């Protein structure tokens, strides 16, 4: 089928204004911050409603072109998952679907479209006394829905009851263009009818004997295009008290955070090395380095909170119980009150990031992240630190109520320096492989990792995933080539 035919059919759906093949526009979608090979899409299209999305997917099935959905309105893309793999790719840019459809205080849930960003949603929720569970200082322009679909780790592990949280129900077009609603949103009845009977699409499981939201999540847009989702909310605390413990020894902090999480004593909870904490607090590179040098190597941050009339009582009980743990374990660490202050930390915990913190030091970074168990964290850190001796940020995030850990290594570098870039590229790939060989579980296998990740996994997984892909996207029109799905 000719390109002209595709274009003409797309114009019928979108009009010419919401389609672009301007080289400057296409160029933006041809690469990202990763080392994934560059390739331009044929067109970028901006749907305004779900009918257009459905028609586009059906058209892709009949005219044999590929679709890559993207949602964030601006800002850097990262992991190579939205770069075209073939010469017949169209970018489906969902950023103009930006309705906050419903904020439901009573049921602690929000329904949003894919284009809604953290920068837009957080203030709206604050007005209603609510908060969304966020990744660590998310970019303001980042799509909230995409972060949830990509299983980005959240900073409050005790609220992560399932590794899928905070994602609840979704409305999705599968690869054959069929509309589906996952979880309790499936029905019986339309969303309007469900609302009338008191429902709020807060149960992600189902419908009945399968949970398709789990196969949409983590699929990098290759199973379905989500048009709205409901996400879990928490009530905004009226008091937040920040703790910042420092140590030269990460084991000591890991041990302490384990106790805090086991007994659900705090909200936000994670460990950063000095450089990453400095990147989160300061913007200017020289200030980042100054702060880095004044901090101990490892920093455990946690927040206790309370709300309303009994907020102080709650804080008092939590503080008392935490102090008991410190005494019982004879920990020699204490709360840092010098190098950082509470406001600095609360700023990056409570607000979206206008100046992406991972880009502040050198203007570029590569991140290596995976899931680990508790015991392997130190070993895997040593593995990376042996190969990268400077400008290495480290972030350890307990997830899923402490049953595993997101480990993230940020290699900061100047992307305009070709020599440095080549060196980082070589190290990025080598270290990633070393980590895979040492038991790091790359459960979100983006771009250049995918092939190596699946090679190190049981063949039955790959086989099963391919079968699933065939069921929900029989003609392989959605983001072909990602994960273990052949182009």
């Amino acid at each position: 089928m000719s390109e002209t035919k595709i274009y003409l059919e797309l114009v019928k759906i979108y009009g010419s204004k919401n389609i672009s093949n301007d080289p400057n526009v296409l160029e933006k979608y041809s690469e990202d911050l990763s080392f994934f090979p560059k390739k331009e899409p044929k067109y970028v299209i901006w749907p305004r409603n779900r009918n257009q999305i459905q028609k586009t997917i059906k058209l892709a099935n009949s005219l044999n072109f590929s679709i890559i959905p993207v949602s964030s309105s601006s800002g850097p893309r990262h992991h190579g998952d939205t770069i075209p793999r073939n010469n017949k790719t169209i970018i489906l840019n969902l950023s103009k679907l930006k309705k906050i459809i419903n904020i439901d205080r009573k049921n602690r849930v929000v329904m949003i479209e894919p284009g809604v960003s953290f920068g837009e949603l957080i203030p709206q929720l604050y007005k209603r006394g609510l908060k969304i569970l966020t990744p660590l200082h998310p970019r303001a322009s980042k799509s909230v829905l995409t972060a949830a679909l990509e299983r980005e780790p959240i900073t409050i592990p005790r609220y992560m009851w399932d590794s899928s949280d905070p994602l609840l129900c979704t409305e999705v077009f599968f690869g054959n263009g069929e509309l589906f609603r996952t979880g309790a949103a499936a029905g019986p009845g339309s969303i309007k009818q469900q609302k009338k009977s008191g429902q709020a699409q807060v149960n992600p499981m189902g419908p009945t004997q399968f949970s398709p939201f789990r196969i949409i999540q983590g699929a990098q847009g290759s199973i379905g295009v989500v048009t709205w989702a409901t996400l879990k909310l928490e009530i905004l605390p009226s008091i937040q008290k920040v703790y910042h413990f420092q140590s030269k020894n990460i084991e000591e902090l890991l041990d302490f955070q384990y106790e805090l999480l086991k007994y659900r004593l705090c909200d936000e909870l994670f460990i950063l090395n000095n450089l990453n904490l400095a990147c989160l607090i300061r913007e200017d590179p020289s200030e980042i380095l100054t702060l880095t040098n004044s901090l101990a190597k490892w920093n455990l941050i946690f927040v206790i909170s309370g709300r309303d009339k009994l907020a102080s009582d709650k804080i008092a009980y939590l503080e008392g119980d935490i102090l008991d743990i410190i005494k019982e374990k004879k920990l020699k660490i204490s709360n840092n009150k010098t190098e950082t202050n509470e406001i600095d930390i609360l700023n990056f915990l409570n607000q979206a990031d206008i100046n992406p913190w991972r880009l502040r030091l050198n203007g570029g970074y590569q991140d290596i992240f995976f899931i680990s168990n508790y015991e392997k964290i130190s070993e895997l850190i040593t593995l990376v630190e042996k190969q990268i001796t400077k400008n290495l940020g480290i972030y350890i995030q307990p997830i899923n109520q402490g049953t595993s850990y997101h480990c993230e290594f940020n290699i900061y570098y100047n992307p305009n320096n070709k020599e440095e870039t080549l060196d980082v590229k070589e190290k990025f790939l080598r270290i990633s492989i070393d980590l895979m060989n040492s038991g790091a579980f790359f459960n979100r296998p983006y771009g250049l990792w995918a092939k190596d990740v699946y090679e190190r996994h049981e063949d039955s997984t790959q086989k099963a995933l391919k079968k699933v892909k065939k069921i929900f996207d029989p003609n392989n029109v959605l983001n072909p080539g990602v994960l273990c799905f052949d182009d």
Partner: protein
Amino acid sequence: MFLEKEIFKEFEDIVGVGNIDDGVVITNVYAYNWCMEIFNYMDGKEPIPFSPIPKAVILPSSTEEVQKIVKLCNKYRIQIKIQSTGLGPWNQPSTDNCIIFDMRRMNKIIKIDEKNLYAVIEPYVSGAQLQVETMKYDLTIHMPGAGPMVSPLASATSMNGPGFTSPCTGHSARNVLAVEWVLPDGEVMKLGSYGLKNNSDWFHGDGPGPSLRGIMRGWAGTKSGLGVFTKVAVKLFPYPCSTDFNVKGNSPNYDFDIPDFMKLYVMDCGNFKKLEDVMLGVEEEEISFMCSYLSGFAVMAIFSNSIESLMDKIPIGQMKAPLVVIITARTKREFAYKQKVMDFLLNNFKIENIIGKIYTPKPIFYAEALRSNLGLHGFIATGGFQSSKGVADTAAVCLRSTKSNIPLKQEFIKKEAIANDFGEGTWMTSYESGHYFHMESPTMFDQTEESSVKGMAEYMEKSNQLDLLKHLGAPFFVEGTRMHELFGPYMSNYHIWLRKIKETFDPNNISDSGFYISPQNK
């Protein structure tokens, strides 16, 4: 239908002599299960408590044996039905061309990972066993409402999963980490981090990429309609109070030393609107170990061990909208804070705790709460019960469903088909500190009386229709082809997708689809 001698021998070679039986006695015994009579009648069959008689019963002892048996079943086109601890009709074959796997030889706790807060178990480990072992680490498990005698693996992978402690331990489906799963074609699949070729471990169940937990189960499991689960890692939770557990006396009237920091509240909220407000209020404070709405009759039942002992609890039964809350704590400070919150809420909502004033339960109640052993009380009135309904979403829809069910239930009470709970018999619990709720309507009937069984089945059918027509969420027991085809068209045509999964992953239709979905034209 017996197995042909040569085929029997092939199976026997896998599991060893004495671990397979196709004799009349054993196969007939395995054809019985609780509530089978209702499901038979709902399927247009005679209301007897027996399923089709299996061709044989086989007892594998390892994943390798399971795999070999499944492959052999594919070769001879014999269907499989899996029983872990085997409670209920979902464990029964839907055809007589079926072998039952009794998983009792796979009964090991593979590991308790204290630092990563999970346990790995085989199918025949019971909740009670696992809980006792986890208590040594100051940890506990999510126990399904069915009770501590059932298999947590079955609940996590294959069945439903609400529990009395769901406010703080969630739902079985959401507590699953890595899984070992023998697919219907005999391939062994290892979900998540357990699938790593080197350094495999059980700490994570999703990926790489999409999570295959999504086809493994939903709100309900596939009830052995999609292979055999041989091991699962399930999340562990902090034990709610001191792990000292001192029980004395003889069954059923045990005595128990109530832990220091454990307090029961039973409050009449007066009406459903207020009940909703109070429940949401309690759950937003994240303080409850248990937070359940039970009808007055059901509250009487959870404190009773016999029909006679029900009778002295009439004042409890008169409550209009009772809420049962238990708070627990590990420290005096925590306990004081939680009590203060409860005092604040009681004052705010102008309700009273009747415990210690109107009624004081026997200490064994607290042991049963810690053990999640309250479900058994549903049996005391008539010897048999089953739940209808099963919606899970907001408190509001659960209460609407409860309310709309009362006149329907009363209709069958009038006919004397089901026991008289005034039509109100309901259990509703919060999950994850009130992020969602579920309700079901336990209904007591007489399994030995055909008219009662038929009445119960008719009531369940009507209850399902009510949920469908009034958009009250999908009930628990939308399972089996007939029900999927009834509900699917009103629910995003999900049955079409579910069937595709079945056809793709079970090309020979080996896994009994009686409680799942059949392939096209079968």
